[in-house]
């Protein structure tokens, strides 16, 4: 996985925004996950079809964070989501 990748959300995964957070339900396993406001923003931009690089560019405008830290955090979150099969990399 790298920053030029796009991430897609499988049909079996539902996500809903509640307050400024997001709760994800994996229908296949019946398991629920929570994303904090920053994770929720990453999820939203991913679900709009942005590549990870585009998403990082957008978030650099929105948050006070260095590019290096942001990219590291985004890649770490996406890896966690991949491990739990909540997203797929590639079209």
């Amino acid at each position, binding site marked *: 996985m790298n920053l030029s990748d796009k991430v897609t959300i499988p049909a*079996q995964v*539902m996500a*809903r925004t*509640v*307050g400024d*957070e*997001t*709760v994800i*339900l994996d*229908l*296949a396993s*019946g398991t*629920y996950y*929570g994303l904090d406001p920053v994770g929720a923003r990453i999820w939203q931009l991913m679900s709009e079809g942005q590549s990870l690089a585009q998403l990082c560019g957008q978030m650099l405008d929105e948050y006070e964070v260095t590019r290096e830290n942001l990219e590291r955090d985004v890649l770490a979150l996406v890896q966690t989501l991949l491990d739990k099969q909540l997203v797929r990399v590639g079209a």
Partner: protein
Amino acid sequence: MSVTLQTQPARPQNPLTVAPFHQWIFPDGTEWTLFYRLASGYLLRFADLADFSVTLDGGVITAWPAPGVSAATVEHLHLNQVLPLALSRQGRLVLHASAVEIKGRGVAFIGESGRGKSTLAASFATSGARFLTDDGLQLEWLDGQCCITPSHPSVRLWEDSQAALISQAVALAPAVDFTPKARLLAGDGLAFCDRQQPLRRVYFLGDGTSPSLTIEPVRPAQALLELVKNSFLLDIKEKDLLAWHFDEMVRLAELPIYYRLDYPRRFEDLPRVRAAIVRHATEDPDELP
């Protein structure tokens, strides 16, 4: 919508040819309920107590007590475990929660077994307020408002709660085979509210480690996860039902009514706990945005 219970003669719990698709396990690892799929619906097995079948539409429950198990035990399992699951097949939202009516407002208490849901409900119902349910809280949207539907007019209490709370004569349901908890029937000493009430507050009960009474707001996402965790749902492997239920819980979680409540569990403190809850639950104007 209604659910019919048919009780059959006792029969032994012979092994089934299919494996359970789900189970409820006690914290000590003992199996409490095994869930099986049948062609016509579901079979719920409570080991050495009873089997219950539930039709796919949740409309008919059939009970087979194990040999030697009392009718009271079957009724108890039906009311507290099987009926809430059957109702979930009919599009009802059912939560592990007790609820009371305070000045025309429905107030619910959600928490794991042992957190004091029933004790709080009984405490209110013996001191001027009325209880709506002691578990299996049923919710329904009416004209855009979430309402609590009253359920069975009885409260299950451990002996210590019963001794501390119930001063006058209250009718008891017959004892059951699997728990020393008594089931107290509503009456003069234990006031029951038999009409739907608007849901105005939900308190998630803490574990009692707080040194003093605390009431803190709960974030909507946290409330959602708690609501989901405390839902009755048959069956969680059915994706359409699970997706529908998730959206219903999201709608519920968006209401501005969720708080975490904790207090030291001392019977002598209950009047003070009740007073704090009444104050907190009635502080807003009786209109939600």
